[in-house]
């Protein structure tokens, strides 16, 4: 059909669909859909009674994208930057715009550092990180871990066996490199 002007026939007519599917065609008119047109002026301002909102007090130097002219009037206050990861984050915000890959790569690197810092710090508290309860792996037993996966044609089962290798591989590699480096240093020192 594609080589002629007719479109391929549909399995059901609009009347058949209307009979079969509750609400079929209730929003048939493309002009009468809630977000169309896209940039429609919102008279009611959804209840806002300000032109520019009052500003939330800044309790510590809040990091912000350099693409913002100033700190936005409202912002989140969860987890201020701290430690080495905090330094990386502040550097990323201070130096790079959102258009730069360095901005995002630094932030992602800081996330990895943060996870390790927090993990190590937790070992010094009364509540160290617990890989069993925090990863929720126990649900493998209580929520049909095996039967959910096998005989079900899932795409992810094919590579699941390799996941532990991919996850632990880099650590083994880094460990090996560190070991080799130390050994070389010791040898040089011994000479």
């Amino acid at each position: 059909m594609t080589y002629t002007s007719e479109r391929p026939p549909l399995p059901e007519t609009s009347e058949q669909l209307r009979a079969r599917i509750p609400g079929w065609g209730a929003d048939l008119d493309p002009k009468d859909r809630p977000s169309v047109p896209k940039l429609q002026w919102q008279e009611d301002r959804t209840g806002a009674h300000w032109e520019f909102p009052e500003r939330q007090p800044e309790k510590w130097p809040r990091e912000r994208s350099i693409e913002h002219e100033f700190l936005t009037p409202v912002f989140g206050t969860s987890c201020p930057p701290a430690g080495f990861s905090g330094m990386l984050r502040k550097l990323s915000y201070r130096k790079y715009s959102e258009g730069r890959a360095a901005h995002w790569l630094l932030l992602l690197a800081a996330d990895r550092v943060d996870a390790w810092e927090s993990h190590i710090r937790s070992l010094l508290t009364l509540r160290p990180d617990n890989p069993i309860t925090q990863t929720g792996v126990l649900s493998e037993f209580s929520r049909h871990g095996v039967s959910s996966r096998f005989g079900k044609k899932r795409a992810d089962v094919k590579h699941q066996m390799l996941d532990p290798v991919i996850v632990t591989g880099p650590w083994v590699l880094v460990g090996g490199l560190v070991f080799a480096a130390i050994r070389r240093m010791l040898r040089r020192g011994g000479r």
Partner: protein
Amino acid sequence: MVYRGPYKVRVEEKDVPAIEHPNDAVVRVTRAAICGSDLHLYHGMMPDTRVGMTFGHEFVGVVEEVGSSVRNLARGDRVMVPFNIFCGTCWYCARGLYSNCHNVNPNATAVGGIYGYSHTCGGYDGGQAEYVRVPFADVGPAVIPGWMDDEDAVLLTDALATGYFGAQLGDIVEGDVVVVFGAGPVGLYAAKSAWLMGAGRVIVIDHLEYRLAKARTFAHAETYNFCEYDDIVMHLKKITGYLGADVAIDAAGAEADGNFVQHVTSAKLKLQGGSPVALNWAIDSVRKGGTISVMGAYGPMFSAVKFGDALNKGLTLRMNQCPVKRQWPRLFEHIRNGYLKPSDIVTHRIPLEHIAEGYHMFSAKLDGCIKPLIVAGS
């Protein structure tokens, strides 16, 4: 709930959030949900996701406390809160682009403010908790209508509104063939909404049989499991008279499970901002001149998208985070008329204390999980 690093969360006592701005409210959460896009955070793929943060952008609850300038809400109101945090008056809000508000996210200009969604989205704690701070309480939340129960309302705070929006961005006209990639909550709702807009045929693609079964019963869709075909795109071409679909909706996003190389480079090594496999399938399987609507979550990192094909085929690509509040009046009507029953897709109700298991179950797709709700304060 508190994030402890990739694949790790735990329950911790935190201070009850305070009013930090005169238009804030503090809401006691009654129902929250885990969303597919939370997995992006959970897997450590969203930049600036800090240890100690509380996730959760889908929640409903009861107003506990209001700031001095709050006029539209009072203590004790039962409210639903859209996942977007927005001011109501900036350039974007004034034009209805609530998800693109410029006044709530100092960390980035490319994305608005979202509850519990990393510092890239403003650094707000989310609703998978007992209490949550709700900024611009006069603007975002709405009082839940008396006839609506909390479980329907919580699905309106993101999943249903986003699915409906996905169909809307597809610019569906009567008789269009619509293909939806991903049969998670957003995909299911997008498929269902496509019919409301007059689609002539709705096809849903996934690899989880239980979700495809839901797509057939809940969304009346024709379904295919991509694992049964060597080339799902070729199959879609074949069943559409070699033309392709008129509209393709990507409801999978960066967590899509593609081939091995994609899995390793994105999910494991984090070299890409997630796997673009669903989006690339959408580009390949839509007809020339067709429309693609992207509802899956993608982070700010680059993904290898087949842009050349999109150009050569003359496609229209449409996407945004859903401006949830604009959808509500219409969706309320559809629910009242019985065209939509949002809570039909809920499969699990998990107490907040067991949220780590909830995340693992949802992430590993155990136990036929489609949409898990979090029950707080039990």
